């Protein structure tokens, strides 16, 4: 098996590798020196990390209310809160 085709010399193999790298546009590193390229290859995680929490909307309920005074925008949760507070006051007075 080994005698069928003689193995090319190391220099020739290097030339082949260099030519191959030029053709396929890959980095030529025959001695496998660690260049730290794997660190640069990685994707950046910054934008994805920042976008985890949604950005606060610049337009708030009070802005819409102020912009369209002719319309009535009921603030149901707040009105519920106020009625409950009034109830608490009434109940505390009833108890005493």
């Amino acid at each position, binding site marked *: 098996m080994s005698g069928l085709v003689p193995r090319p010399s190391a220099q020739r193999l290097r030339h082949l590798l260099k030519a191959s790298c030029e053709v396929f546009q890959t980095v030529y590193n025959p001695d496998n020196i*660690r260049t*730290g390229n794997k*660190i*640069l290859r990685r994707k950046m995680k910054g934008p994805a*990390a920042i976008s985890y*929490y949604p950005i606060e909307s610049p337009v708030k309920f009070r802005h819409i209310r102020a912009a369209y005074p002719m319309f009535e925008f009921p603030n149901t949760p707040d009105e519920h809160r106020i009625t409950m507070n009034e109830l608490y006051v009434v109940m505390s007075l009833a108890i005493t």
Partner: protein
Amino acid sequence: MATKIPTPGCFINTMIMRDNFKRHMAAEAEAERRALKHIVYNMTVPVRARIQAQLKLAVMPNYTRMNQSKNRCVVSGKGRAVLSEFKMSRHQFRMAAQNGELPGVKRATW
């Protein structure tokens, strides 16, 4: 602080504010950290420069590290049992799913 970090639009909590700050700081420093790490790993660079880069990396504040950010629940601020697909902790997820607020999520039966 030169640029103001935007306030999150979800549930606000001390822990969420801290995590948000860390995320922004880590994103800011990511390029610098990446460059320093590259120098450390690069064997063609002289040894002294590599060591200096490693020290610089070690001295960088903890809030510049991407590992320090934690996915918190966006509704309750809980740091544990958070499903990253929904950004909610397990109880909040359960409540939202049973209310039908999560599209395509239903009780598993097979």
